[in-house]
């Protein structure tokens, strides 16, 4: 720390040098002076309503709330004394005035902040003899259960809802002792992220899907990485025996790049793990058109290998394709690549990613932005994409950068997404003209053409470029899946073209899948997924995960192959044409790593043993290879696979599992930085595409509903009954006292079911 901008603070008689502008409560806590608080939450607006963090500051008349005090030079603070303790005990008495004593049946019992403070500061006797407020427990939505009488009005949930999610779905109504947290009409129509549940210090807001299922001390909490979007949030999987009961991000269990933030999928999307439809045993289709018959692993492996060897002998190795899903771990994808190159010897391997970032990483001109960089950036440019729905953590960071950090957001989008409420400049384009925006930003001479095709004023593009080049500090450039390869290359070179003396330009792609970046790292020399899907020369395919039908709009030519090996969690559409199906283990059952869109490589940890007879994808690939006569030498350990990745993949060089141990300090992959190069070829490629664009199309004027992407039923999320209710428009049930699942049938049709 620079001495010039540090100040001296005396706490309980000891002197500390702290940074200017530091908050007193943080300073005290960093120096091991424990200060209780409920309403203080880092990086949220101040509330100062719980009055638990009182301290005595010399020369100030009364006790002060340390959460609202910024340290000044020479401040003398006492955090522990008779007087302060008395005040804190009285405050807790107030908080407990309406709090029921139902800890034994409260889901938060055992990990409740109020409980802990009461043990430390509570009085044994209560002078409050009047009747307590009474409210029945109820549901606020399929996901969120609410017990208003436990509320201590810290308003963390309302602040999180407003500042993180920008939704203001939950607020405090009524007044005084009757204040309740809720929403108009008593039904939450929001993105159901459940962050209000996470930050609630008591049992007021509860996970409606995990309710009354377990006590926290029965659960094994394992830190892992989310397998839904590319933000790579760190979460903690709570499992008991072989069942996964809940997913939380509470800082007592995990402290990752996302803090306590999770979105609906991360928090509630886990029931697919032990769903009854999981494939239990290997399956073999002995002849085309026949049924899939359960088999043993040995039978299935040898059957697959026999057929693959036949095809290899008659048609050559290149007639066999290997296609991995970007949802798999790095280890699985590396293992698949090794299977393709070393055991089979084919050139036809790749990833089925709907949005391939290959051109971007080939031309990468600067480091990837981390989520922390986004939070403290000065200017954020978002071209296309919709982070709030597809990468919720990025959406939250953008919103906080604007609201709490004063950043400016330049939004270039064809859809009026909700982030435009935060945007300092919203450039509304014609659908599909995002490439024109990139061209206009990067090359001023094409401005007129581009603005005509985008149907915006050239002055707006001018203003956006000026805003970027006037920035002192970090500029983050994000882009969504709308960009073509040439545009990605141009964006990837922007650190050279738009960077400057006092300005860092950082890039932040918004890939679609949890391991899109890692998959690309593992299979950089592979082919595009679309190419493989449409390839007519392939006779056999090894599919790890269902090839994404949105890559080509359909499964391409894969079903025409003679022989198809599939490893999957569920019998998806690909199961209809697979000849051998291997049961794969889900992310909660394997050790591995995912690489997120910050380039952070983060551990996936085994929370439960693989269910039924499933095996990790990397192990399936290794066993296939062994049957083909090539021993990878991975034995049975994922760390051996990762060690080999650390030896052979340049950007991962030297990485080992022990280095990834600490989730609060993630390791960024060292992607090769390409040199600056002439972009005129890319410009002419984009220009040709832009010139062919339609000039008459109308702009999209509607603002999409919250959750239009989040609530879409995918292979994994359709296994969660609550998602069906949300996808059907989240109807309010007859009674909010009973779980909506008992009142509304989940079969796509919403009929009334007799209340159980």
């Amino acid at each position, binding site marked *: 720390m620079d001495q010039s901008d540090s100040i001296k603070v005396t706490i309980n008689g000891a002197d500390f040098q702290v940074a200017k502008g530091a908050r007193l409560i943080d300073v005290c806590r960093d120096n091991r002076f424990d200060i209780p608080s409920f309403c203080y939450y880092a990086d949220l607006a101040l509330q100062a309503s719980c009055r638990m963090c009182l301290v005595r500051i010399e020369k100030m008349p009364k006790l002060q709330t340390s959460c609202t005090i910024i340290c000044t030079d020479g401040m003398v603070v006492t955090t522990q004394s008779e007087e302060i303790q008395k005040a804190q005990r009285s405050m807790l008495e107030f908080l407990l005035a309406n709090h029921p004593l139902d800890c034994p049946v409260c889901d938060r019992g055992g990990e409740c902040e109020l409980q802990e403070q009461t043990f430390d500061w509570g009085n044994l006797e209560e002078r409050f003899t009047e009747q307590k407020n009474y409210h029945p427990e109820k549901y606020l939505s399929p996901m969120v259960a609410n017990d208003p009488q436990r509320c201590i009005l810290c308003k963390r949930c309302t602040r999180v809802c407003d500042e993180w999610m920008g939704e203001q779905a939950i*607020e405090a109504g*009524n007044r005084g002792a009757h204040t309740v947290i809720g*929403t*108009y*009409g008593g039904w939450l129509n929001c993105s159901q992220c459940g962050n209000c549940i996470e930050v609630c210090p008591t049992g007021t807001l509860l996970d409606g899907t995990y309710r009354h299922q377990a006590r926290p001390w029965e659960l094994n909490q394992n830190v892992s990485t989310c397998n839904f979007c590319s933000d790579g949030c760190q979460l903690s999987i709570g499992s008991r025996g072989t069942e996964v009961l809940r997913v939380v991000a509470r800082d007592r269990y995990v402290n990752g790049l996302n803090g306590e933030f999770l979105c609906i999928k991360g928090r509630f999307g886990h029931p697919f793990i032990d769903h009854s439809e999981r494939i239990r045993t290997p399956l073999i289709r002995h002849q085309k058109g026949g049924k899939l018959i359960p088999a043993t692993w040995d039978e299935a492996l040898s059957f697959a290998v026999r057929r693959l060897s036949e095809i290899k002998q008659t048609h050559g190795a290149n007639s066999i394709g290997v296609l991995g899903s970007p949802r798999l771990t790095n280890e699985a994808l590396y293992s698949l690549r090794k299977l393709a190159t070393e055991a089979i010897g084919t050139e036809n391997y790749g990833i089925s990613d709907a949005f391939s970032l290959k051109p971007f990483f080939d031309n990468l001109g600067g480091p990837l932005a981390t989520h922390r960089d986004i939070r403290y950036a000065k200017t954020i440019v978002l071209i296309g994409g919709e982070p709030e729905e597809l990468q919720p953590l990025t959406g939250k960071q953008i919103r906080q950068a604007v609201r709490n950090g004063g950043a400016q957001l330049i939004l270039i989008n064809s859809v009026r997404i909700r982030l435009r409420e935060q945007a300092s400049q919203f450039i509304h384009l014609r659908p599909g003209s995002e490439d024109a925006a990139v061209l206009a930003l990067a090359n001023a001479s094409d401005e007129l053409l581009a603005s005509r095709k985008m149907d915006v004023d050239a002055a707006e593009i001018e203003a956006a470029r000026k805003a970027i080049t006037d920035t002192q500090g970090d500029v983050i450039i994000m882009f969504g899946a709308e960009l073509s390869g040439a545009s990605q290359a141009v964006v990837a070179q922007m650190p050279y073209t738009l960077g400057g003396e006092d300005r860092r330009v950082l890039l932040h792609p918004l890939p679609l899948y949890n391991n899109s970046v890692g998959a690309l790292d593992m299979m950089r020399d592979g082919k595009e997924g679309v190419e493989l899907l449409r390839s007519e020369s392939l006779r056999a395919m090894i599919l790890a995960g269902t090839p994404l039908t949105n890559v080509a709009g359909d499964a391409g030519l894969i079903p025409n192959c003679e022989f198809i090996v599939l490893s999957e969690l569920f019998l998806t559409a690909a199961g209809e044409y697979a000849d051998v199906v291997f049961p794969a283990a889900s992310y909660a059952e394997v050790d591995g790593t995912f690489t997120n869109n910050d380039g952070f490589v983060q551990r996936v940890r085994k929370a439960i043993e693989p269910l039924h007879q499933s095996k990790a994808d990397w192990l399936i690939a290794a066993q296939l290879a062994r049957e083909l006569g090539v021993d990878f030498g991975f034995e049975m350990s994922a760390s051996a696979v990762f060690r080999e990745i650390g030896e052979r993949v340049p950007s991962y060089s030297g990485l080992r599992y022990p280095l990834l141990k600490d989730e609060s300090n993630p390791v960024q992959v060292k992607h090769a930085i390409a040199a600056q190069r002439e972009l005129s070829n890319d410009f002419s490629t984009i220009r040709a595409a832009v010139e062919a664009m339609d000039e008459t199309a109308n702009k999209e004027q509607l603002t999409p509903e919250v959750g239009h992407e989040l609530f879409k039923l995918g292979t994994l999320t359709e296994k969660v009954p609550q998602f069906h209710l949300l996808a059907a428009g989240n109807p309010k049930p007859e009674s909010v006292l009973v779980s909506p699942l008992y009142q509304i049938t989940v079969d796509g049709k919403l009929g009334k079911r007799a209340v159980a």
Partner: protein
Amino acid sequence: MTTELVNIQPLYQPVKMSGEMAVFSPEVEAEIDWHLAKYPSKRSAILPIMFIVQRERGYLDGPGVSYLANRLSLRITDIWEVATFYSMLHTKPIGQYHIQVCKTLSCKLLGADKITEQCSQKLGIKPGETTADGKFSLSLVECLGSCGTAPMFQVNFDFHENLTTEKVDQILDSLP
């Protein structure tokens, strides 16, 4: 009969949000515009406009709330926060005469409970309720700033101070 001297709080807002929006006459719209023009941000005009909507519709019903949210570019929840915070804003139908008995310290010490009891007996309703004919509503409110002349209650917008049993009878009987 002894009544419990607490407001009966509605657990769930009785307002049904149907999505339809209230429509007001041009004169009322002009009045709302006049209030909006006074402030740099629309949000600041929420209270006066709420009173107008309440005056026109009797209470803040679903269409009224939708209108407010739309007109002020706020979320429904923001309206709910404000509407349930103030005792002069109503989210359910209210009687023609709204009797608001002060229950804070000075009035309580000088017999506000007796006044409440008496109103309750006379009108046959508990605090927080409305008579069947829709004429009277009774509620308990926090300090109305008339401590020097306690006990007191407020009927619609009029203060009645230094209340005694006779005075209460007389006031309630005189209301047409």
